[in-house]
């Protein structure tokens, strides 16, 4: 059996990518494109909407339709695309800063509307692009370029937020667990309604360097160790849980998506 490579969606001559050696973004991109290929996405019926950040640069390398937007607002742009043309596959790429810090409000409401978008939020626990500043997902006490003595704030659980806000599909993967990640993305893309795949990912240049994981391999080992299944996580005692996170599918439900509901309401309006 031959495996999907996703290469056909990559722009010719775009290598080397702008991302640092050891950055996780390339692995996520590759797995997303393999998922595209396995699902037979075409360039014509796919729109990749990106925000601003290192991950938000991903559209530079793609030959699908794309819309590179403003910091934090990608989901709102994507909402307009999808609401007007429900046939499109609309995939939204955001960093943790982009997607749930500056963009937190849009994230909540996209999930609440359950609009049929797939958000792939790469969480590297900091603002890679601007020099490794603290983000809403930076764990407490961690060091970043703006929390040099440790982060006094608490971290946001992106998946829990999506679940609470009403997303149909929620999953977390890491770039260490690449094969699983591809499958989670594929499932999210196939699911009607709002899907979130959070990808825990290394930024060795900033988060790693500031937290004794300057070498990329150290960061990958950290993901390998700390990302565990729901079952394994449940076996940990409360004091052991610190630093560990669940990977895999977290939410899978079938509430009607925004476009389906809108079409029902519109039919009512047209009949009145």
């Amino acid at each position, binding site marked *: 059996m031959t495996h999907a490579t996703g290469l056909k969606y990559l722009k010719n001559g775009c290598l080397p990518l702008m991302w640092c050696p050891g950055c996780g973004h390339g692995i996520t991109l590759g797995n997303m494109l393999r998922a595209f290929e396995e699902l037979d996405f075409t360039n014509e019926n796919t729109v990749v909407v990106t925000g*601003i950040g290192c991950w938000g640069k991903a559209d530079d390398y793609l030959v699908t339709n794309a819309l590179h*937007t403003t910091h934090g607002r990608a989901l709102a742009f*994507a909402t307009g695309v999808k*609401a007007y043309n429900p046939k499109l596959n609309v995939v939204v790429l955001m960093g943790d800063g982009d997607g749930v810090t500056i963009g937190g409000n*849009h994230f909540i409401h996209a999930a609440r509307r359950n609009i049929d978008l797939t958000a792939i939020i790469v969480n590297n626990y900091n603002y890679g692009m601007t020099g490794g500043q603290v983000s809403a997902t930076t764990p407490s006490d961690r060091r970043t370029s703006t929390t040099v003595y440790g982060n006094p704030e608490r971290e946001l659980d992106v998946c829990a937020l999506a679940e609470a806000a009403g997303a149909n599909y929620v999953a977390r993967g890491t770039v260490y667990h690449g094969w699983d990640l591809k499958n989670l993305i594929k499932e999210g893309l196939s699911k009607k309604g709002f899907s979130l795949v959070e990808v825990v990912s290394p930024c060795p240049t900033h988060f790693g360097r500031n937290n004794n994981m300057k070498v990329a391999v150290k960061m990958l080992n950290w993901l390998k160790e700390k990302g565990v299944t729901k079952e394994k996580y449940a076996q940990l005692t409360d004091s052991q849980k610190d630093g560990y996170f669940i990977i895999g599918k977290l939410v899978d439900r079938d509430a009607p998506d925004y476009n389906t509901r809108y079409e029902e309401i519109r039919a009512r309006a*047209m009949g009145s």
Partner: protein
Amino acid sequence: MERETRLVQGNQAIAEGAIYAGARFYAGYPITPSSEIAEECSKLLPKVGGVYMQMEDEIASIAAMVGASLAGAKSFTATSGPGFSLMQENLGLAVMGEVPCVIINVQRAGPSTGLATKPAQSDVMQVRWGRHGDQSIIALSPATVEECFTLTVKAFNFAEKYRVPVVLAADEIVAHMRENLSYPAPGELEIVDRKKPSVSPEEYKPFLPEDDDIAPLAAYGSEYVFHVTSSMHGYDGYSNNNPANAEWRVAQLHRKIERYRDEIVMTKTFDTEDMDILLIAFGATTRAARAAALQAREMGIKAGVLQLLTIWPFPDKEIAALGPRIKTVVVPEMNYSGQVAGEVQRVLGPNIEIRRVNRYNGTIITPKDILKVINKE
């Protein structure tokens, strides 16, 4: 076809004008004094197969509007002061991405929350310069309910023709006023649709202008695949930081509006042939200016009025053409700083006397206010 006449509010005329122009997508966030536009759209758009969305804020509203436009919809949003401020960053994206769309700003009195339900004309400069980075913009300003309708249609036509966002800078007075509107019959007013690519999908470059300086725009979901970005980009829509490319693009964004300025700039004159004194007005203040000019004539003062239907690009040429006929110009406007008066002075130079009539307390400028200034010797 017979025209139908109804007594309607300015905001309703704007919503109906938009749908007449072909608008099929609205995303907005309620704010006085623009909310009736949202309410009308929520009623009318689903009936014509369109989409109405109330977003979580104005940042999302303008973003969704841009997304829908790139998916092929004529789309728009409406707001007022605070919401218009929130929209600025993404309005800049619409300029950069050359996205056809219409933004209605029903001006209200600030600063900040200010006098939330009261009229103003204090966003003239924000409309023009509110965004970071160099860019040009088209803005129109209606003075009557009928103009609310017709200028909204124009705004869509300009947006579609020149591939730009267009601002309709209304004010609380025209937006909430009710007048008889004689509805243009379907097909009576010209409706412009964006230029579609004529080359093959392989050859299509979304930012390569044709001889008319306008690049054709495909829609997401069609056979044409394309990139749009807020970053500096080349003809193909991919980022491009080359200084020569950036220089060309920034100039191009200005150039396409400059080239068509004669089509874009609309003014009306009233009694300017034999005038000694000229009133220059826009939006609701035009109404007081016209009344004042008529009363001045009864008192033996030959006053004329120039109404600016287009406020950006500024009607330099039209104002300059009237300059030799007069020594005095009166500019009434509902702001403190004389945002239009300053532009008029720039056009006419220091040797013409510009008399300003400014109100910035949320009450309207009356003909009497203007007459007082006309009579001042």
